[in-house]
């Protein structure tokens, strides 16, 4: 596979390490609330098994060490978009 790195251009997937769903960005912040256990359980363990476009996290370990959000169709392996995870995280309202 070839991943089109937003900063470095097309790179072979061999340079990357795969983590999993980009939902892992959405770490709950309510550690003090009563729902924390349920929310963290949902966050860590419960995944959609998507036949279609899946947003997933790849790490450019043999490159610039960027975490990327790669939107990949699980049926065809077509890669629809590649974004810096940092930008996605900020766009989803995460900051410090």
């Amino acid at each position, binding site marked *: 596979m070839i991943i089109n790195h937003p900063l470095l251009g097309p790179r072979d997937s061999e340079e990357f390490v795969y983590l999993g769903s980009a939902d892992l960005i959405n770490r709950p*912040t309510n550690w003090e609330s009563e729902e924390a256990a349920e929310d963290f359980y949902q966050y860590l363990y419960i995944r959609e098994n998507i036949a279609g476009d899946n947003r997933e996290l790849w790490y450019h370990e043999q490159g610039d060490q960027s975490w990327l959000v790669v939107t990949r169709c699980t049926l065809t392996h077509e890669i629809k978009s590649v974004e810096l995870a940092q930008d996605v*995280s*900020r766009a989803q309202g995460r900051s410090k």
Partner: protein
Amino acid sequence: MSQINRIDGGLIDQTKSVSFAFNGQILRGYEGDTLASALLANNKHLVGRSFKYHRPRGIVTAGSEEPNAIMEIGHGAYKEPNTRATITQLYNGLEANSQNHRGPLDFDFMAITDFFSPFLSAGFYYKTFMWPKAFWEKFYEPVIRHSAGLGKLSMLEDPDTYDKGFRYCDILIIGAGASGLSAALTAAESGARVILADEDFVMGGRLNSETNEIDGIKGSEWAKQAVAKLAVMDNVTLMVDTTIFGAYDHGIYGAIENRADEARADSSKPRQVNWRIYTKRTILCAGATERAIAFGNNDRPGIMMAGAVRTYLNRFAVATGQSISIYTNNDDGWQTAKDLTDKGVNVVAVIDSRSIDPVMSIEGAEIFMGTDVTDTKGRRAIKSITLSNGKTINTDTLAVSGGWNPNLHLTCHHRGIPKWNEELATFLPDSSVPVGMSVAGRAKGTMVLADAIVEGHNEGSAVALDLGFKAGDSKPATTASVAYNVTAKWGVPSGKNRAWVDYQNDVTAKDIKLANQEGFKSVEHVKRYTTLGMATDQGKTANVLAIGIMADNMDKSIEDTGTTIFRPPYNPVAMGAFAGRRRGMEFYPTRYTPTHKWSEEQNAIFVEVGMWYRSQWFPQPGETFWRDSVDREVRQTRESVGICDVTTLGKIDLKGTDVSEFLNRLYVNAFAKVPVGKTRYGLMLREDGIAMDDGTTARLGENHFVMTTTTANAVNVYRHMQFCHQCLWPDLDVHMISVTEQYAQYAVAGPNSRKLLQKLVDPEHDISNEAFPYMGAGEISICGGIPARLFRISFSGELAYEIAVPTRYGDSLIRVLMEAGKEFNAIPYGTEALGAMRIEKGHAAGPELNGQTSAYDLGMGGMVSGKKDFIGYTLGLREGMQRNDRMQMVGFKPVNKSALLDAGHSMAGAHLVNLRDKPDTFTDQGWISSSIYSPIFGHYIGLGYIKGGHSRKGETVRAVDLVRGQDIEVEIVSPHMYDPEGECLRV
């Protein structure tokens, strides 16, 4: 007998004789021959025995689809089994041996299995050998394995070299036949970067096998000129003898280039290169493969594909017999008869299963229309055939054509399903080809040469245009249009005679019928039940035929019957080619520590730790046993001072105004208020609450920290930290970089460690106990201005420091330390002594951080902060993570202190059971994870996990090692066995 089947001409050089050996007999061929063509020139039709029945078998094809002529080539470690003679280029000194027979090829003792064939039908493994059950492993399986099978491995390491390479192009063209060359010419003209690859060692495809004229010259000559034209173009790469074996995602193709010639001349050169080709577009021009017809005894040597007979005749100047007959269901079979008679070879009969007018007249041959071959005779070579009209004809070669199947395999590598075409009686690629691929010529079902050339020509320029390259205005080459008509013919009713479908796996039409009768209706099931198409040829000549027979059996259309899925590799690929240079020590990079050279000078024993080589111990004169050295290293460190290279620990440099907050969220314990000049031990969890790694982090400045991780987890921890920063808290002001390789770091441990370091540290830095207390950290200089970092931390449990200098000073530092340490009898110690001391001290390491343990299990529950969020906090609070009956880490001491002293091994790996229990899965209480002989205590000690261990201290249990036959009583103790109050650390 010398090349009695050789005639004049061909594309070989009949002035250059080549000698080779087949089953020990020296034979001759010519330069340009394949092993198969040279064997046929010498009238060697019988070249092997079949897989299951040990039937005599001959050469069937002239290409990579060959099912029968697979041989062992070479000898000793160079021997390669299952090599197809049809694609092995002949060379001087080639040694070939036929496979799968006991005794001579002519009289195989295992041929007796042929008479037992009623017991060996489809699924015989599942039926015959089920009873008695115990017989399977000891009797049936060894016997079957011995009698069935392919060539034998040499059982020696492959001495050949393999390599990997990467190539990039705009357009990859697979196959250099008429359509591939036409496509390459227009694509190359446009200026696009073109790679043209062909599996044959001569480009030209079927043009080299046929007599067609193109642009007024011989087809093979036209191909040669086209190749010559392409060869001089800068934007074209020709890859001859290169098989594209797989289509992968995003325009990546796998290719194996055969360079055996070069490697034989120079053994340092690779025999094969595994290329990864990156392309924007691909044109598949892989041509077509002829299929057989299933009739009675259709597997005798001398029964060949009609197209192959032409290849041997026209390309290799070999007449495969003296009285040849042809059996066909299509027009193309007749071309074989015509070419043979044109060259003066006697054709005795043409049998066409179609009830139509003869396609052409063949001089001297009897013509039978609407007739089939039903049986053949001849044990080691065909002697006669019997026709459906009852007539018997004497013949020494039967050329069979069941029609041509497009080589569409690569179009299916992304799960494309081929489409049935009734008119051509074969499957064609449908539109679901891999992205970026298009198909031209016979691979697409364009069976008429004139049309295939135009198609290739147009596809080459169209694809180039798509990519923004403008093709020239050259015209496609022209050739006479020859019709191709075919009527499907699968099996012929053959009575009791067996009709083979898959030669290599010995699958007959009856086997397929039996499978259908027994309820296997899906092609995929029949394939697995009968093993059809599962041999090294992957059923290239057999699959479509088998589907046709299945459809007949079940009275279904072929479309409804379906096909199996084609997957990479298209042809077998040697394992060595996938490994490339990554063998032995080159499997992955080797990392040496800064003291490596010095340690070699000390005759250190090294151990591999991941990619690292670390000193395991340093034997001194007179020490004959590893423990002599290790015990000495422990004692001398604890008594005076020892030095250990700990460079392999992960080191991460962190800067930024939010680093302390960032660390606070990574570690279970508080990090927000670590003062400058201090180090703190930290435990990191995974988000699920399981311990991930531990280490120390020092604050060197207000906004500057340096973290250490364990050696094993260095990469993972850094990756995790990048994730936490970039994905979870992107606006924290944190910048980090791994500096593992930038700093040489040594532990200087023992009561005299400070005195030793004081000799090196520049006088302006005070490292006295008061100025630089336990857990102190700072940037200092040594030896007159060399920058260094000093950490007062201890893994050994002694007064100890770790000192780091830029790696380039590492070698010098160990020499300076050892020289300065002479007055204290300083010694270097290795990983064994390091391990012994950390077990004595009760520090968890790799064997304890096994991915199952919580902070509480490790006895670090008290460290866990309840006042902050950190990774693993919430899920670590789950009831099940903190239960008191979990496996908890404790220490173990044998009740009998002399236990195991004579055993030569420790308690490591032993399982723990209560005193009166029988050791089994149900009574299992835990295990010993780390154990070593402690020279300080004078007996073995261990760390390990036992149910509810924290509250069982003082209890006696048994450490049972069923593998090594040990069963000893041990006392559960605190893991902190050496200096539990930590007094040594603070002096």
